[in-house]
């Protein structure tokens, strides 16, 4: 095992939500899914060309599942028997040609075969990030998320678990947001120390990817990069989903409420009505079990 050459892994998570991309195609904007994947391939090729020990992985995050676009299933055994079919004709470094063809093939398969069932149209990003973390367990890695559709509030808990696991493993999560700001990704970037960028002009996606997200974390201190976004860490109350500054927290299940109520709606415990703790009880009796 070469000890000086540490493997650096870049995992690119691409949001291929078919509903959002379909709406983009209908509106005939400049950015289509194929152009987005072209930009991703440019970034992937540049990253792999930077050092011999760089590894790339690309995962597509769909409405119901996530698929590895690259590498294929036999990467760990080093099985390269299928690679002979992918020789490129233009003299490109073979590894890059193989990667590009693989990604193009797999994304065609994913988009044509996966059905959108049920009434869920949100991209399930938390599961994809969890897979990316499992994939990059033994190596020094970082994750870049290219997000298209809006956040899904149901994933909050899974998302936070993934963020804390990434923080413990020192894995950076960067975010490149195409459309609407995502509070969850802003928190992820803030907690893990990554970069968050909402792209002003979608046409120039490749430019932003190469400028902002190609350098590694050690090189970022020497560059002037977009300033960190202001993250709103206020909690949302469970009853109205409003952001509150002062709230009441149930000591059993940690749910947050904006008003005092005698019963917690989440865990259904009845609370003892107590005075606020800063006032010492003088006249009223507190029920103290001795």
């Amino acid at each position, binding site marked *: 095992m070469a000890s000086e050459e540490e493997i650096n892994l870049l995992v690119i998570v691409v949001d291929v939500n078919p509903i959002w991309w379909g709406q983009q195609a209908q509106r005939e904007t400049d950015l289509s899914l194929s152009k987005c994947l072209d930009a991703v391939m440019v970034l992937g090729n540049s990253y792999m060309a930077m050092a011999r020990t760089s590894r790339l992985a690309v995962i597509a995050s769909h409405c119901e599942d996530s698929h590895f676009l690259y590498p294929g299933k036999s990467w760990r055994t080093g099985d390269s028997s299928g690679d002979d079919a992918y020789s490129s004709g233009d003299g490109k470094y073979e590894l890059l040609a193989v990667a590009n063809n693989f990604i193009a093939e797999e994304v065609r398969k994913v988009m044509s075969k996966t059905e959108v069932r049920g009434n869920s149209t949100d991209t399930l990003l938390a*599961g994809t990030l*969890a897979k990316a973390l*499992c994939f990059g*367990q033994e190596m020094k890695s970082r994750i870049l998320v290219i997000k298209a559709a809006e956040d899904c509030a149901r994933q909050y*808990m899974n998302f936070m678990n993934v963020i*804390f696991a990434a923080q413990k493993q020192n894995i950076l999560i960067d975010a490149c947001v195409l459309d609407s700001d995502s509070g969850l990704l802003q928190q992820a970037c803030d907690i893990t120390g990554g970069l968050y960028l909402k792209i002003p002009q979608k046409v120039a996606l490749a430019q932003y990817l190469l400028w902002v997200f190609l350098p590694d974390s050690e090189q970022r201190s020497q560059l002037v990069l977009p300033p960190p976004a202001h993250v709103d860490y206020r909690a949302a109350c469970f009853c109205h989903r409003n952001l509150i500054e002062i709230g009441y*927290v149930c000591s059993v299940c940690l749910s947050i409420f904006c008003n005092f109520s005698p019963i917690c709606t989440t865990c259904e415990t009845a609370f003892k009505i107590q005075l606020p703790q800063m006032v010492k009880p003088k006249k009223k009796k507190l029920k103290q079990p001795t």
Partner: protein
Amino acid sequence: MDEEPERTKRWEGGYERTWEVLKEDESGSLKATVEEILFQSKRKRVTESHGQVRLGMMRHLHVVIDCSRTMDDHDLKPNRLTASLKLLETFVEDYFDQNPISQLGLITTKNKRAEKLTDLAGNPKKHIVALKKAVDTVCIGEPSLYNSLHLAIQTLKHMPGHTSREILVILSSLTTCDPANICELIKTLKSLKVRVSVIGLSAEVRVCTVLTRETGGSYHVILDESHFKELLMLHVKPPPASSSSECSLIRMGFPQHTVAYLSDQDAKPSFSMAHLDSSGGAGLSLGGYFCPQCHAKYTELPVECKVCGLTLVSAPHLARSFHHLFPLQAFTESPAEGFCQACQGELKDKSIFTCPICGGVFCSECDLFIHDSLHCCPCYLIPDGTISVCH
């Protein structure tokens, strides 16, 4: 107190033929057996779970460290005190990682007295600095179990009823020098609902057995350093809450982080309330967290506002504890082949783990990672087509 039947001691049972566990394979190598044993011990941690039990999320824990003469012994390298302090540093970090809204305090005992090393606080840095400095203490005299427990009770008895009150004693000496009857103190501890656990470094001591049994804690004696680490990590997870602990709504503040630059026109530098007492702390700074009730500034969370008494936390701090409340189910093991859905690695000759809710298939390393750090299942498609969250 002596009515409970004692468990049989090790020397009273029959012979344990420990050598029969090791089996050689054809080439005479023990590697496969050793790997199997390590694998089983890792899996044991994953499958133990409390189930649907209410846990004490907000904990007030005092750690009592024995600094008596026996801590100078060289059976743990370089000596017991240095090894214990090093493990405690890891313990403090993991404790605040898993219990972000809890507090910890350190007490040392030597020369028949007990002294507070650090007060009960929610910030890990102070404790780690104190632990690093404590490596230089001279280990003399005898410890005093009574005095250290008494000192811990002084602060714990004022804590509100919905928090869990715990004391963890790391005792290496076989003796203790107490000014009064410790049985009375045990009765007081029981009435105050304080849970005392002991980790012994030498041998089992009867007074510790009684103390932990009466207060509902656990008592273990270490075998070696890795066992010591394992026993310490057992105390990181929140314990089941006692049935008589109160449940209440705690009023908390969620301050916004304001970041100001010198180029802003309204930027006003201010002092942080947390550093008022320390002489060498940070001076004026521009941004920070402002208490929503009294607008006092703090540089770090979680903290209790010194001016108005409001507990200040941020939403991710509470989110860190959610995986205790909604633990992930253990996966079912079965021998099969295929590819791990999480890391895309091939599974040959190993068992696969299946999530009982969504049917996702994972290898053993991913299973360990999922249950130890991740706490959520990467795939969540239920076979009947509805999508849900695997919990």
